[in-house]
């Protein structure tokens, strides 16, 4: 048996060691793949879309379709966001923005971007606000027929939206390109250890001059509207022929400047992470909500949420004639909607409605409205 004694291992063409060996018998390796739990982005591969497969945006619409990614359409055009199967090798889905009504001349304050907010307590290892603040590397796959310069922007909600940005170029039409940026850690901006917004990521797709008149900031700088999208040359909404895709979004602690391979998680893992922010409990004809019982003139149903949600959740519930039905020994009663009664630990809720289906009833989605069946969902998005 022999021992190889070296202080480092380095590629012939590299300027730094891939593996550095220390005198205490340990080593530090600059590994670019197969490290688990390094991606701070939830649903970066766009595989979870609990709210549906597509959503039309007109005017100043600001809403989620694909889990954890919120699209803002704040101009005179319109677009449809969908979960697309167009994707680079190794991925099954992407988020697609398809322009359906053009806005060829943006007003100064009009814009559109795609946003993703990361919960602050999940970013404590970045060490922001300390001398040891860590560099992060962001990577994603992007594709569009509309080549040109776009802006990627990060803002810190806990520090008056201090921001950094990078311009990136889509070089070839209709071709997947992986983009990678590194941002030095912020030694003066603490990310609070709470359930609020830690970092907010924005992919700008169009920006009026209010957002482009400043300078692109490569280090965290006090927020100014003019800096946010400085360098954004493309107006994706200048033609209904335009479309833009993104997937494989990753944000990792990484100072190498080289993004690691995208960290794929299973669908079950990704869905559970998404459900902390949005949980679809029942949707579609005859979907079961839960058991119900009657007290006085009301019936009640206790619902266990899949995971503890980020905050006390909002309940989103259909509201039309006979949208729901409670069926029990005393027969069935139909109701148009449900009311949120109380909640505990953000994972158990009580809903109620006037009516008496008797003891041991089952509550479910019932009649459709214009062909669409009802739903019951809870949201605690950041």
């Amino acid at each position, binding site marked *: 048996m022999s021992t190889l004694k070296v202080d480092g291992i380095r590629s012939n063409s590299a300027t730094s060691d891939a593996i550095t060996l220390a005198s205490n018998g340990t080593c530090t390796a600059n590994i670019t793949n197969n490290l688990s739990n390094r991606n701070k982005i939830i649903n970066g591969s766009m595989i979870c879309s609990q709210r549906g497969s597509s959503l039309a945006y007109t005017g100043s619409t600001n809403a989620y379709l694909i889990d954890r990614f919120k699209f803002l359409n704040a101009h005179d055009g319109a677009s449809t966001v969908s979960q697309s199967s167009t994707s680079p090798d190794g991925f099954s889905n992407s988020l697609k923005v398809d322009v359906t009504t053009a806005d060829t001349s943006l007003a100064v304050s009009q814009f559109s971007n795609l946003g993703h907010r990361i919960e602050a307590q999940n970013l404590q290892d970045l060490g922001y606000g300390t001398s040891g603040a860590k560099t992060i590397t962001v990577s994603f796959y992007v594709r569009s027929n509309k080549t040109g310069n776009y802006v990627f922007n990060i803002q810190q909600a806990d520090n008056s939206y201090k921001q950094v940005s990078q311009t990136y170029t889509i070089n070839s039409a209709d071709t997947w390109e992986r983009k990678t940026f590194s941002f030095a850690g912020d030694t003066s901006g603490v990310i609070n250890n709470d*359930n*609020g917004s830690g970092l907010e990521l924005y992919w700008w797709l169009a920006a009026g001059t209010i957002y482009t008149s400043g300078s692109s900031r490569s280090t965290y700088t006090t927020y100014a509207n003019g800096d946010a999208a400085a360098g954004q040359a493309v107006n994706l909404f200048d033609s209904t022929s335009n479309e833009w895709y993104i997937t494989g979004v990753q944000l990792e602690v990484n100072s190498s400047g080289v993004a690691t391979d995208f960290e794929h998680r299973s669908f079950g893992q990704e869905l559970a992470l998404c459900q902390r922010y949005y949980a679809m409990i029942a949707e579609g004809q005859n979907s079961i909500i839960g058991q119900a019982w009657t007290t006085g003139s009301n019936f*009640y149903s206790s619902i266990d949420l899949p995971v503890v949600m*980020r*905050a*006390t*959740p*909002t*309940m*989103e*519930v*259909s*509201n*039309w004639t006979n949208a729901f039905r409670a069926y029990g020994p005393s027969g069935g009663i139909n109701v148009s*909607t449900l*009311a*949120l*009664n*109380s*909640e505990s630990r953000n994972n158990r809720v*009580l809903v*109620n409605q006037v009516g008496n289906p008797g003891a041991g009833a089952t509550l479910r989605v019932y009649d459709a*409205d214009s062909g669409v069946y009802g*739903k019951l969902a809870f*949201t*605690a*998005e*950041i």
Partner: protein
Amino acid sequence: MAFPTNPIYKLYTSTFDGVVTEMILKESNNIRINIPKDEANTDYQEYLEWVAEGNTAEEAD
């Protein structure tokens, strides 16, 4: 109950076993939105901003 369009919010209270819970209602595209009074809830944050602009929600029934 006709849902208000202006103001866009309506208060409501519910009671279970003597415990009274106050929440806020909003409606959009046949979806009723039940908003709890939790300052970490972004829908409640939006409601508070709307109130801060001088608006008042419709009283509970």
